[in-house]
């Protein structure tokens, strides 16, 4: 069972209090974008074995969306962070690097 700390209310929320909201840091391509970009925005998702970045919502709690960095293989959580950001904070990236040198995920490494 996954336990994530909500960065907004500070609660260590057990998985059933949360709702998974898919991949983190998606860039939206809307009307007038080209078909390939729109298709990738809608359908193309990372499915890594290892380091992954996700969006979660503290659904049965404060209601806020937040981000989480974790490993899909060990379930280790590297940290949770604000939804008001375009990329993972440096301290979380450093933590991942310490464990998985040379990791990369989309444009982040």
């Amino acid at each position, binding site marked *: 069972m996954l336990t994530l700390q909500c960065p*907004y*209310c*500070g*609660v260590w*929320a*057990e998985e*059933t*209090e949360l709702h998974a909201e898919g991949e983190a840091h998606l860039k939206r391509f809307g009307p007038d974008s080209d078909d390939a970009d729109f298709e990738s925005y809608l359908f193309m998702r990372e499915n890594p074995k290892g380091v992954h970045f996700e969006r979660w919502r503290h*659904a*049965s*709690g*404060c*209601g*806020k969306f937040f981000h989480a960095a974790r490993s899909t293989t060990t379930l280790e959580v590297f940290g949770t962070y604000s939804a008001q950001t375009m990329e993972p904070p440096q301290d979380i990236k450093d933590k991942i690097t310490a464990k998985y040198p040379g990791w990369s995920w989309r444009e982040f490494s």
Partner: protein
Amino acid sequence: MSKAVSALDGVTFDGFAKVEETGLRGMITVRGDLASKEMAAAVKAATGAEMPVQRKITSGDKGAVAWMSPDELLVVVDYDAANATVATLTDALKDSHALVANVSDARAVFRLSGDSRRDVLAKLAPVDFSKYAFGAGDIRRSRIAQVSAAVWGNDDGSFEVICFRSVAQYVFDVLQVSAQPGGEVGFH
């Protein structure tokens, strides 16, 4: 004017802890910048209470104020005082980017009392209800079985559970089952 009644008309259950629907309660959702002096003044004027910090509930002579999220408060007053309290808050926040809404009729409130009240809740919510983690002045939003709810601790040791009125019967039923004699856990 029609007579307002609470969802379950004050139903009670005496199990290994006591479950009671408390009846009508005034509840006002307030959203805005909780760090602003306007918000602190509004809350003070409406309830007499200080601004609560994260996951706390404070009380004053006219009511209580609960921290619901970084930009949301719940103001709890007497049911009959709700509209006047909305007016006070709205006036105090008229120059701020804020929202004030009377949600009294959208809610139900249950009180849990008795030595084993913590066990009743611990069976239903993924929350640490030990006395070291949760007590008077704390509020925790979570779920009760399958529906969203919030619980706070009163000074007299009792807990109050709030949920949406539409699921009041469900919440009462699961609290009742959880408090059923024979289901004692004796953990807390």
